[in-house]
């Protein structure tokens, strides 16, 4: 093996190059082997230790939970670091499940474990996931003060959702407007399911701030975020007073069919208002070029559910050419079959029969009784 390899004016014997390469690969392999096996042994030892003390710690914790003075401080001082870690994980598990007085008593254990102070430090100095962990612990401990006293301002959608949940769960949220502002003001990116759920829960009792924010901001949002907000609106199903909903009807005319479909579903929950029922708007909506959007529009009409809406739906279905959209429409119409002329749906043919029979089976399975369709 007498070859040489040349580059940039230098010549290196091939054997030297190969040996160097072999050394590098060998070193990488040895290092990865040692790290892997060392990490596995470490985790195994740690898990084993925790498992050994878990039952005892759980028993002691539960015993103290049901006495007048649990004496958390004294108990924590007696625990080893492993037992404290286990106590922390048990505390988290219980706080997520329990309510009322037991929860309040357990929150004292969190303070004794120093979790409030740790959360305070992490809010100031930690990375995103440390801050999220801090906000989560403060929520579980029902203590918003470290967050309110800190200079930390939530930036990412995850942080915003965690902060609003903390404030909302501890009754420290001034009003819905504050929650919506924290969640949506100058937001970049979009929510996780937790964020979407937070927006929903905070807007549930008072949707006006969300609708008002959406009306002015929706053009600035990226499409995934807009779709998420529309999905939240579709679930609100509550009175919105005189809020301007024209942004929703405009969203129904955007390019993106996913947005149009989401807008139709959102309108379904606000459709009791006459201003949304403009005939010209409805004509355009049921003639949408996308069968997916038309299907959502049919669901919207079904959600409105009164005679006028069902009449528009039936009329649209008679001329519907896409079998999948037709089936979506008949499935919606079947839910309101008691409000339409029993003879009329015959014009919808197989789709009606199909939807009707499946609705009967759904009802049968829910009731757990015998079949009623024949």
């Amino acid at each position, binding site marked *: *093996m007498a070859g040489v390899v040349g580059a940039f004016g230098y010549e290196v014997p*091939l054997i030297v190059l*190969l040996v160097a390469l*072999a050394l590098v*690969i060998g070193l990488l*392999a040895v290092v*990865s*082997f040692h790290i*892997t*096996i060392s*990490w*596995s042994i470490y*985790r*195994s030892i740690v898990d084993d230790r925790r498992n050994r003390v878990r039952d005892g710690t759980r028993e002691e914790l539960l015993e103290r939970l049901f006495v007048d003075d649990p004496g958390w401080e004294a108990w924590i001082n007696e625990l080893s670091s492993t037992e404290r870690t286990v106590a922390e994980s048990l505390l988290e598990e219980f706080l*997520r499940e329990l309510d009322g007085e037991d929860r309040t008593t357990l929150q004292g254990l969190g303070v004794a474990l120093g979790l409030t102070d740790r959360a305070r430090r992490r809010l100031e100095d930690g990375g995103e*996931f440390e801050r*999220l962990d801090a906000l*989560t612990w403060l*929520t579980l401990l029902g203590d918003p003060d470290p967050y309110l006293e800190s200079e930390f301002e939530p930036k990412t959608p995850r942080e915003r*959702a*965690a902060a609003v*949940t903390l404030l909302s*769960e501890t009754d420290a949220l001034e009003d819905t407007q504050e929650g919506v502002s924290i969640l949506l003001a100058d937001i970049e990116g*979009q*929510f*996780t*399911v*937790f964020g*979407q*759920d937070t927006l*929903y829960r905070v807007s549930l009792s008072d949707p006006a701030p969300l609708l008002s924010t959406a009306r002015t901001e929706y053009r600035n949002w990226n*499409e*995934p975020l807009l*779709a998420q907000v529309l*999905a939240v609106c579709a*679930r609100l199903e509550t009175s919105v007073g005189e809020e301007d909903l024209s942004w929703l009807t405009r969203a129904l005319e955007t390019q993106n069919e*996913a*947005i149009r479909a*989401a807008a139709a579903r959102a309108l379904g929950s606000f459709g009791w208002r006459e201003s949304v029922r403009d005939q010209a708007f409805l004509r355009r909506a049921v003639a949408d070029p996308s069968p997916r959007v038309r299907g959502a529009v049919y669901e919207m009409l079904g959600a409105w559910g009164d005679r006028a809406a069902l009449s528009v739906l039936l009329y649209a279905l008679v001329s519907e050419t896409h*079998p*999948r959209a*037709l*089936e979506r429409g*008949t*499935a919606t119409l079947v839910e309101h079959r008691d409000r339409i002329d029993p003879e009329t749906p015959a014009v919808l*043919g*197989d*789709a009606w*029969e*199909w939807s*009707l*029979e*499946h609705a009967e*089976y*759904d009802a*049968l*399975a*829910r009731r*757990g009784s015998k*079949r009623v369709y024949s």
Partner: protein
Amino acid sequence: MVTVTAAFLTLLASFGVFVVGYYALINVGYLLLHVLALFELREKVRESRWNPPFRRFATPFYPGIGIVVPAYNEEATIVESVRSMLSLNYPEVEVVVVNDGSTDGTLARLAEAFDLEAVDAEIPFDVPAEEIHDVYRSRTYGGLVVLDKENGGKSDALNAGIWLTDMPLFCAVDADTIIDRDALLELARPFLQEPTTAVAAGGVIRVANGCRIEDGIVTDVSLPKTGLPGLQVMEYLRAFYSGRLGLNRVNGLILISGAFGLFRTEAVREIGGYRHDTITEDFDIVVRLHKYMTEQGREYTVDFVPEPVAWTEVPRKRRTLSRQRRRWYRGMVETIVTNRKMLFNPRYGRVGTGVLPFFVAAEALGPLIEGVGYVVIPVAWYFGALNLEFAAMFFLLTTGFGVFLSWFGVFSEVWSFNRYDSPWQVLRLLWYGVLENFGYRQWKTIVAWRGLLEYLGGVESWGVMERSGFSEDE
């Protein structure tokens, strides 16, 4: 004569240079992929360790999922599988079992266990599949639909299920796949975070051989007791925790396992569903989704989520494994040939210019070239054209690097989700990472060549999987 010999020797030397260069490039590609995977895994692990303070199951935003289960002669396991799927932790699940012309008692077992009745109404839309004889609904389980159709193969059965489900997402699973209880909640996350763009998401497939399974749940994770399934555990770990995670980092995931993938129903219907004339429908569907979405100029994402896990039984016998891998190889070649216009085509973005060419070079051509190398080496030695020192060194280097990459995959598993929690099991996994280079890897090159020849010869059969069942001791 001298000229012919000289030309032959030159050819051998050129081949040697080509092989060295080729493997250097491929291995650099793999290394890059593994490093990308590590970054991706770090992010996913941090994300998965944060448990936000809300009740996931109570949120109204999870989109409904239709679990499509193609079943052909599955009477032994189908009832247990369906029960397991009906009890998954997910707010809205519809299980669509497609009895694909079974000749055994699959349908009868289902009808008896779930109190099924045939629906009288005609299906009001065309379904691109073999004739559907009947659609059954359960009188007791609202979320169960059973289709009885003429046999048409797995793709055909999946299409029937996809066209019949009402759910916006569908999950394609094999009838004998065991899905972790919370897996769907995790797998649906990309569709919630990217509601306008997510079209597909894949989870991790792990090897069920050797694990304890009770009531359709994996209760104890262990390595298989025998070598061949053990080597496959190693392969699966490397494929999922390195390969797919790395590709996910560059939004270039082109393969979602047929045993556990979640898709937007409408998007798959738009591309006509699964192709009937392919034997690796899972690879084909993802490549076609990439192709279609790019051609339509639509923004889209295909995601890999590393924690939701589905468990599958892998072949224990070499003959069965060979059959499976030959089928995979034929399907891969077929999909690449069908979608060849994507190769090196900038119109298809990273998938066209980077991911697919690398995949072809590494997974399709790599084993073939390696196989040729094993033949050329003795020939070159016979003609005195082999530098034994160099050949030995090259073999050691490629083997050493292969071992390193395998160990990298094991490290990713231990560092992240650590399902194999005993160090002895980890040690065994590391050992498999070494062992696979001696015999198994060479055997796989023969399998690849046989797969190619079968493809060229027009073989289209699936072969029989010969499963022993999860409860049987190995």
